[in-house]
């Protein structure tokens, strides 16, 4: 679907959009959502630094804020690392794939426990549709129409759509 070059170009474009939308980088903090958003947040922060200057980058673990706790496994080692006070900040949340919106909803609650940002924006590499909550991204690498039983895998090497293994809901 997307190759490594496409991913790189999409990240560069999103970095420019973040600068443009915020008229600079004052108060901008980039936070990757654990687990899949973390490498992307680092890449995005590197792109931003290459264009203008370095911004604080961290991660946010939404597992303890989900609305489906007990229904799915959690990954233990993931944890939040918020390097600065988020009060008054412009937080750019980063995730690899935007699907139902539930992870982002949980991440918004997690962010709120660290302070009251002036604004929170959402950057995703892939928007695959099927939202279940009123959540929309501010920066999108690629809109990718999918069916609900497909799975989207996003890495630095690219993005691919695979059929879910048989038996999975």
């Amino acid at each position, binding site marked *: 679907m997307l190759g490594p070059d496409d991913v790189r170009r999409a990240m560069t474009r999103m970095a420019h959009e973040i600068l443009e939308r915020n008229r600079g980088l004052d108060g901008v903090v980039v936070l990757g959502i654990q687990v899949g958003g973390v490498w992307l947040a680092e890449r995005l922060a590197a792109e931003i630094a290459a264009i203008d200057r370095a911004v604080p980058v961290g991660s946010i673990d939404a597992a303890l804020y989900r609305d489906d706790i007990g229904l799915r496994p959690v990954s233990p080692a993931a944890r939040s690392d918020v390097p600065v006070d988020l009060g008054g900040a412009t937080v750019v949340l980063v995730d690899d794939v935007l699907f139902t919106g539930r992870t982002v909803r949980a991440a918004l609650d997690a962010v709120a*426990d660290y302070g009251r940002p002036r604004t929170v924006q959402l950057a995703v590499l892939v928007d695959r549709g099927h939202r279940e909550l009123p959540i929309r991204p501010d920066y999108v690498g690629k809109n990718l129409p999918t069916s609900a039983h*497909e799975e989207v895998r996003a890495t630095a090497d690219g993005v691919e759509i695979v059929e879910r293994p048989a038996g999975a809901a």
Partner: protein
Amino acid sequence: MKHLRSIEEIGTDGVLRLLDLTDTMVEVNRRPNPRVPALRGKTVCNLFFEDSTRTRLSFETAAKRLSADVMTFTVGTSSVNKGESLRDTIETVAAMGVDAFVVRHGSSGVPWQVSRWTTASIVNGGDGWHGHPTQALLDAYTVRTALGRTGGLDGLRVAIVGDIRHSRVARSNVEVFTALGADVTLVAPATLLPPAPPAPTTADLDEVIEKVDVLYLLRMQQERMQEALVPSLREYSARFGLTAQRAHRLPEHALVMHPGPMNRGVEILVDPAELPGAVITQQVTNGVAVRMAVLFELLGAGRDVPTESTP
């Protein structure tokens, strides 16, 4: 993971998983508002048939920081005194809707018995001389972070000193440290060793003190004197206590640990505040985070359910 009744039950993988999850909980506890909504709507019942203020408060704090509802009852306030059987007590409380029981009891094996009478998860908060798995986990976590390890504790030399025979803490700690790859030595007079010691033993603390990475002191209980298992507290201190001289002979990096409450002047004859390697306060702090990890793993982690494509 459904229950935590012993270290053996969860195995090395379970131990490592809980220690990793504890990192997440430590981060939560460092926040100005150390509370997350993870276990909203879940009820945790602390059933303490034997009083232990620190373990009870630690579990209560852990449950509250995960937003669970907590019920606590100790024998003194329950109808156990009116002749209600253990089974009736469990079934009555379970009927109120409990997702997890933390059980502390003076008899070994009670957590297993309780799990036959309820579908709730069971956490062993200490059973007789048998085990105290959350204490062992918090000790392993304290060692791991204090020595900057990330995975297991391969090759680490741990000496556990004191009344091994009557200590559930010793038993669970041997299991957890051994599971993580450490070499454990038990230091005690022969009268305070169990018939089949779970690790190599010695009666000479001075022989091992220069070669340990972790010195773990157990609480020496007064009633052992009445049973004539040790001649006197003074003699015990002289042979097995951490004196100033012995403290000097500890390797510089060595940690000194104690499950609390300490008998100052018996097993520890120096002020722990002046021992650079003492991590006794960290043990208490980490206890809350480890118990949060345990409760979250049992009640919130989910099992065998396929994941969505969004991580």
